[in-house]
């Protein structure tokens, strides 16, 4: 057995590197059940050690059904879409995935996490904004939203839209190039603390909440494993919620007190 393993290792290492036989980790650990995820700071990101809350929940839900999985965060929606449509990936994760009606027919969408979202404004520009839940208040103003977000409701309300990465939207808010931005509360709190700590007091969250960002997995029906794993994942997720482990995972990332502040419960 030892000899066999040595031969295998020798064979796979030959073409690895010019400097000598090297067994690269990529050659020995091809991703199992790889799911491509759109970066969503604070909850799903390559910048967080374990990939973030959403990645941990997905991995654990699969694990409950004895299924291994690999979450690969990507920084761009175009790349995530590429893997779904061009590489026939098992699935993709994110919110505002911007899938076409044809693409929607070929996926099984499973919500994983619901985050509270709000509008934020820059106090030096506006003392307050009369937001009561109706977009008409923002008529003729410019709202910064996520790339890929459906903007038809804004357009109907006569609201101008800028779609950019979060850091760029925050900078635009501070530079008074946009008037309001919409983002998940947790993501915004994290971004302000990390990169805009000097401006935290100037960026104000509007009440009531703007809605919610739902992070979902889109299982690909065209992938041979897509439908089966979607079912197993749903079962695993239901067990995770029922056992309380789902909430425990969230608590372990952000603390018990913050769960209600940032999340909407996911139904069993």
């Amino acid at each position: 057995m030892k000899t066999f393993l040595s031969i295998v290792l020798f064979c796979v290492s030959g073409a690895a590197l010019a400097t000598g036989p090297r067994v690269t980790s990529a050659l020995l650990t091809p991703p199992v059940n790889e799911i491509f995820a759109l970066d969503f700071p604070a909850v799903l990101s390559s910048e967080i050690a374990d990939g973030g809350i959403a990645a941990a929940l997905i991995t654990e839900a699969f694990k409950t059904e004895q299924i291994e999985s690999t979450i690969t965060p990507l920084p761009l929606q175009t790349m995530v879409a590429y893997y779904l449509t061009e590489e026939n990936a098992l699935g993709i994760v994110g919110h505002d995935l911007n899938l076409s009606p044809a693409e929607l027919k070929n996926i099984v969408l499973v919500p994983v996490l619901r985050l509270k979202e709000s509008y934020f404004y820059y106090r030096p520009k506006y003392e307050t904004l009369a937001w009561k839940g109706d977009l008409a208040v923002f008529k003729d103003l410019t709202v910064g939203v996520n790339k890929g977000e459906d903007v038809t409701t804004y357009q109907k309300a006569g609201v101008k839209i800028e779609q950019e990465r979060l850091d760029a939207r925050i900078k635009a808010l501070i530079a008074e190039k946009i008037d309001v931005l919409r983002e998940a509360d947790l993501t915004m709190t994290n971004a302000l603390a990390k990169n805009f700590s000097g401006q935290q007091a100037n960026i104000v969250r509007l009440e009531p909440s703007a809605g919610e960002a739902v992070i979902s997995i889109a299982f690909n029906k065209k992938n041979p494993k897509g439908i089966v794993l979607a079912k197993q994942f749903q079962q695993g997720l239901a067990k995770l919620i029922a056992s309380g482990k789902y909430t425990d995972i969230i608590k372990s990332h952000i603390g018990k007190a913050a769960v209600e502040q940032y999340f909407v419960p996911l139904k069993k």
Partner: protein
Amino acid sequence: MLKHVVLLSMLVTVPPRIIADEIPATVSPESVGLSSLRLKNLDALMESHITEKKIAGANVLIARKGKIAYFKSFGMADDNKPMQRDSLIRVMSMSKPITSTAVMILYEQGKLLLSDPVSKYIPEFKNQKVIEMNPNGKGYKLVSVKHEVTIRDLLTHKSGILYSFLNNYYHEPERQALIDLYRQAGISDGFCRPDETIGDMVKRLARLPLYKQPGEVWDYGLSNDVLGYLIEVVSGMRFDEFVHQNIFTPLKMTDSYFYVPSEKQARIAAVWKSDWQGHLTRTDDKPMIDGDLALCPFDAYATEGKYLTGGVNVISTAYDYYRFAQMLLNQGELDGVRLLSRKTVELMTATNQIGNFDATFLHDHGWKFGLGFAIQQDRGHDVDAGDVGVFEWAGLYSTRFSVDPKEQKITIFMSQTTPFGLHFGLWDKLLVLSGSAIID
């Protein structure tokens, strides 16, 4: 009385100019085998460029046999401020050899191997893809790497990681498609410092495709920025702290910084825009955008910041950079302090690192790229630095250094002029004049 008032008001309003630690006096050129008379040709060359308003100012330093034989300042550093020998200069890509040296220090400490895949230290580099255009010209596909990007690939620019600004000059579909992805993902060349850590940027970059298969390309890019973050991961220290502790402090480069402290800000030279036809203007505090090139010379006035790029971050002086170059010329040692071994410097300056590619980006055929700089391999081409084995690199605001191991000669030119591409003739002439001053 009026004179006293003027003098007093000057004392009150002019910020104190903290001068550099003493720079050693230049030696007689003849004592190191250089001709004083012939070096005067350099004065004339530089003065003509100032008079004709091709550049605002510059420092020129020539050393031989471990001694500085010529060190002169020409023209202006800023409005109403003459260039001085201790003027602080954005050395931009001349930061790269410093970053490479930092990597080689860790290599000598046994903390990494050049053959290590980068993913060993930065997991986001695992399972990378390479962009390939579809044969019908519509869209691209992503194919797996044949081998993972290694530390050596980064040091030699064989990683397939690009600079966005070169998209202005090289027009290919793959490059365009990849730079579009860079733009969407907020990948910065670092010439305008983003408000994030280098680690955040590098982790995003790692998830984007490569331009070509690692090892099968030579393309100048953000590889040194990745190395800066890799140094943080391997050493457990902030990149700037590692460089200060292991390079700037031991080499007594007391005027070299990632962010210049407030007491030395007055010494920072301004960047000047020149068409080399007599139109010379000082740049202001607005970003200069030209296609995929974004420059923010005013970033140098920040006294602190998060972004620490291994590609272009360092601000230094001609004398400090001379000390760094002399360490390399001495094969790793300066004034009794050894940073690298002779064997490692030999490896860094070996000419067989990039296979059949030539380092034509700043030089020509007949030039190769080692672990941090271009190296002249033969003398049969248009760009000639005077000897086989000469190693050099440059910075985007028209700065240069050249080390000639055979003649034990170092030539440094530091201006702050944009655009970059117009100073090549002046630099080539400087090298000819410094070489032709050799009389032994």
